[in-house]
């Protein structure tokens, strides 16, 4: 393969978990939940997949467990935000702390050692390819789902004007709950990819801020599935570029910081007016 092909493949590989997490962010934010706990969902997905693959010897069961665990963490945010009136930002921060601590704790309990797990049965190259392709399929499906189905309309409306949704006889809190559940599952799959497809183990901190890069991708992609996917691809290419530029004298920290700097720039609106859903992050309470 040529160097260029290598670069493209590496970009896709680096982009895949970002796409899943970014799509999770899009669903949640379009429904009105600012999900800053994506990092925690990636972490728990990655850990649960490895732990279950270790326990059962079957990586596919591990994959399903990772997705389910991510969904549960998403649901925790959803329930806290829609049922207990807990602020989404505060809850998200707590969930990230809880997830990182929980995974580190679980690592010691399950594998008897801190830092990193043992190697476990993994999904292999085929599995990795399927999950990478799945990311793009998920993006298209979510695009169609959000813009072409009643579910999508309800979801978008809950993020723009939840009161109107309620007037139409649908409780926007339930719509938001479904969004956090789906989002958590997607982010969980992103985590599974990191631990069971790209590698065959879990190590502390392996998500390395991807949940926050995904939030940046959501803003950059203007809260649309295809836009966020494009942004995640760009950030994946940046990550791949780091390997190319390793010996070029460009500080790797600068390359790593670019997605976050891009997000700050997007907040100033220089990339055109990027508007968040009207009720993004705004709790909905019956009055």
């Amino acid at each position, binding site marked *: 393969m040529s160097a260029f092909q290598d670069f493209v493949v590496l970009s896709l590989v680096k982009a895949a978990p970002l796409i899943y997490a970014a799509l999770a962010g899009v669903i949640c934010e379009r429904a009105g939940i600012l999900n800053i706990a994506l990092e925690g969902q990636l972490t728990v997905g990655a850990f649960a997949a490895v732990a279950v693959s270790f326990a059962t010897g079957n990586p596919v069961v591990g994959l399903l467990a990772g997705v389910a665990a991510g969904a549960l963490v998403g649901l925790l945010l959803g329930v806290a935000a829609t049922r207990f009136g807990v*602020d989404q930002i505060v809850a998200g921060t*707590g969930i990230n702390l*809880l997830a990182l601590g929980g995974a580190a*704790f679980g690592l010691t309990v399950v594998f008897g050692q801190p830092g990193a797990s043992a190697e476990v049965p993994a999904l292999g190259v085929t599995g990795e390819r399927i999950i990478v392709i799945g990311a793009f399929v998920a993006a298209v499906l979510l695009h169609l789902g959000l813009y072409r189905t009643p579910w999508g309309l309800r979801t978008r409306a809950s993020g723009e004007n939840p009161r109107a949704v309620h007037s139409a006889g649908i409780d926007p809190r339930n719509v938001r709950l479904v969004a956090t559940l789906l989002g958590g599952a997607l982010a969980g799959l992103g985590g599974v990819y990191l631990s069971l497809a790209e590698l065959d183990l879990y190590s502390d901190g392996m998500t390395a801020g991807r949940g926050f890069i995904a939030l940046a991708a959501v803003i950059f992609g203007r809260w649309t599935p295809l836009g966020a996917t494009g942004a995640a691809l760009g950030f994946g290419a940046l990550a791949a570029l780091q390997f190319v530029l390793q010996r070029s004298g460009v500080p790797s920290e600068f390359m790593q*910081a670019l997605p976050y*700097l891009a997000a700050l720039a997007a907040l100033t609106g220089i990339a055109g007016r990027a508007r968040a859903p009207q009720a993004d992050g705004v709790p909905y309470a019956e009055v």
Partner: protein
Amino acid sequence: MIRGLWIGFGLAVVAAAAMLLAGANPLLGFWALFRGALGGERQISETLVQTTSLLFPSLAVAFAFRAGLFNIGAEGQLVIGGLAAGVIGARLDTSGLISIPILLVAGAAGGAAWGSIAGILRARFGGNEVIATLMLNIIAALLANYLVVGPLHSPGAAGAETAELPHSSWLPTLLPDTRLTVALLIALALAFVLRWVFDRTVFGYELRAAGDAPEAARRAGIDLAKTAFVAMALSGAMAGLGGATIVTGVLHRFNVSLSPGYGFIAIAVALVGDLDPLKIIIASFAFGILQSGALTMQALAHVPKDVVSFVEGLAIVALAARRFVAGRKQMTAVAQE
């Protein structure tokens, strides 16, 4: 208060269940935790060191919250403050009467500058301060790593840290042979000053008005954009000052991993303390016990220390009070007009 006790009880039960899961005896676990935190003069002094390191960012978080701003970036502001103090401190060899104030001010200035970035984005462009501070946390860590290893590498330093500060720049200790320094007194003084600012000054009133009822505040002539900027800058200054006290008082150098997440735990501390500076002192002590007892618990009772982060995260979710919801809703409504 009663509800708080119930939540505390519930969290203790969860912690006990986690210890059982880890194959440890919960009673032994709690005993080791408290022994590690309060079992003697040395342990208590270390707990107070943790209390101090938590108190600065917790006050920072509470200050911004009171003004209706979610400063999730205390961690990054603390790192930048510590970086400023460490980089300057490693190059400054003079009397402590001169160098210590310079380093503390440098830390506060660094934190303020970092907080201001989010403040400007919010005040000038209406950019979401939550996203901004989240991004700035990571940029701070990367920047610190780059500078300390690269251009600002101090001669003789190993790894991602600066050289040791000259002894004259170390904060004076309160007890001999401990790491407990005057930083504790500075943090306590800051808490009392903040309480006074909130309760007794026009500025504090404006901040609270902007946080509690932004629409009313705007109609009353309070400049919300300016308030947001000032609140973020001052909040950053407090967190940065905290970073500087860790560098000058505890580590005596800047290290990229100087904070085990103080800026995030601070959110729990601020909530437990009801955003009241004086109650936050007590909350910081409680969380200081967790931080400082965790290692003893791991060593004596074989409970992985990470159970502490888990319980702290759970505490944040459980304690987030309903009253923020109202303030946040109004604030966002105004921001979107």
